[in-house]
């Protein structure tokens, strides 16, 4: 009997500690959450040093860092600062495992879609090409960056042409490069480009960004088509059409284009301006690329 009292006191203290520890842990987690996850990459040593320190386990360490980097990339809003940390992480991962092509590929895309850091994206892709010269998607993505972000069609064409010559490259790439060389400033080139990118990507966040951009360019292409038809209508009948449907009947358009966001194309007879019900502004800079 005399033993039960100290025993129950011990058990009670134990239980109290379990509860207390849980609360303490919750509190510490809150304190730690003040530092964003990505900033912890700050403590990552340089790839070259880490390579020696992991004693032959480079691949596994690269995998674990990559998984962490993906989680950070999956956050809803990626700031520019976070973008720089992502770049740093990608650089370390690819130094550890230079043949990890998926990192160059997904990282190169993420650095121009989730954030706008084309220089960093290019650096990652160039590093990837250096270590994996036979992998066509890397020069393809580099071409993408030069076309959309840096507005250098000649360089873009060079890289796409290079990609088209590599094993496994889709056949359309060669034609693509030719059109780029001709510097075809038409939205259709951009649509082709974005559609291929979309097919290539498996990251849901990036896909959403690409899908939105793709639709915006489709709207731009449709608006240009409609505007062209309207001016031909005016040349033909010496007056503006009353409705957009008027364009179809004389055969100026095969059918009215469908608005990709699910809205409608609106037409103002007075000003003869067409616009999408879903987009406030038209794409600027040569009307199809992202404004920097």
């Amino acid at each position, binding site marked *: 009997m005399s033993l039960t009292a100290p025993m129950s006191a011990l058990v009670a203290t134990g239980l109290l500690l379990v509860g207390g520890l849980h609360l303490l842990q919750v509190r510490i987690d809150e304190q730690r959450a003040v530092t964003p996850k990505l900033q912890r990459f700050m403590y990552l040593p340089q790839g070259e040093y880490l390579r*020696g320190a992991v*004693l*032959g*386990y*480079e*691949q*596994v360490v*690269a*995998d674990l860092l*990559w*998984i962490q980097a*993906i*989680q950070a990339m999956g956050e809803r809003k990626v700031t520019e600062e976070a973008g720089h940390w992502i770049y740093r992480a990608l650089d370390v991962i690819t130094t550890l*495992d230079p*043949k*990890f092509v*998926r990192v160059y590929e*997904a990282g190169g895309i993420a650095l121009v879609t989730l954030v706008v850091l084309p220089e960093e994206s290019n650096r990652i892709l160039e590093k990837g090409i250096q270590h994996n010269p036979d992998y066509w998607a890397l020069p393809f993505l580099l071409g993408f960056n030069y076309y959309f972000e840096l507005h250098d069609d000649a360089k873009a064409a060079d890289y796409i042409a290079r990609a088209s010559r590599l094993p496994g490259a889709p056949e359309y790439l060669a034609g693509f490069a030719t059109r780029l060389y001709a510097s075809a400033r038409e939205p259709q080139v951009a649509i082709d480009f974005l559609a291929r990118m979309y097919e290539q990507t*498996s*990251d849901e966040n990036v896909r959403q960004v690409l899908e939105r951009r793709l639709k915006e360019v489709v709207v731009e292409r449709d608006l240009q088509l409609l505007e062209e038809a309207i001016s031909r209508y005016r040349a033909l009948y010496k007056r503006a059409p009353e409705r957009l449907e008027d364009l179809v009947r004389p055969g100026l358009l095969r059918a009215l284009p469908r608005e990709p966001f699910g809205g409608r194309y609106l037409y103002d007879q007075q000003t003869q301006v067409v616009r999408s019900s879903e987009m406030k502004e038209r794409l600027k800079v040569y009307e199809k690329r992202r404004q920097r």
Partner: protein
Amino acid sequence: MNRITVIALNTFRETLRDKILYNLVFFGLLLIGSSILLSTLTIGEQVKIIEDIGLASINLFGVIIAIFVGIGLVSKEIEKRTIFTIIAKPVPRYLFLLGKYSGLALTLLVNVGIMAAGFFLTILVSKAGLHLALLKAIGLIFMELLVITAVAVMFSTFTTPTLSATFTLAIYVIGHLTDDLKVLGAKMGESLTKTILDGLYYLLPNLDYFNVKGQAVHGLPIEPSYLVSAATYGIAYSTMLLILACLIFQRRDFK
């Protein structure tokens, strides 16, 4: 020859009774299996992550087993005084040592086999393809374990288990960094330092020779001639260490 087999099989049975062994193999298998879970966190490349984690687990747990079972082999016999009963018999000391080493090598082979089976099962479950390169990588991992075991046995002939473990672990770490000795030496120019660094480079085991995990996972070619050279290096280095261990053990005075 027969005497070696008896001692080896006895050592094998003895190590199988070691609980630490089962814990390590269990954790190895757990880690290999958990790679399926981890691979769901990534985009694409699930197979790479499963293979990386599998090979790394086999390697890491193999090394831990080699060190922590290897260091106790000889010292335990001395501590428990069981060594006297063997030394008193017409068994030369070097045969005793070689038997012990072979027994542990057999244990390691079985352990690596179990972990490899778990690894291949994981690959099959995740519907990735098995390929021969993985087996090559595991083969060289086993070679690395043989060298490390020889290091552990060598140290355990003349010092305590704790010190042997520390020394062997140190050799393992250094063994993966010896390439830097060579690079460092090359930068020194012709000097005494360079001679010393070069000497160290050729004296210490280069354990990175046995690391083809990256090539295996990325599907890069691993030449059969390379496998042969690396395996020969491993066997030759282990033999050298065992001869050294026998020489030390021969002179040792048991009190």
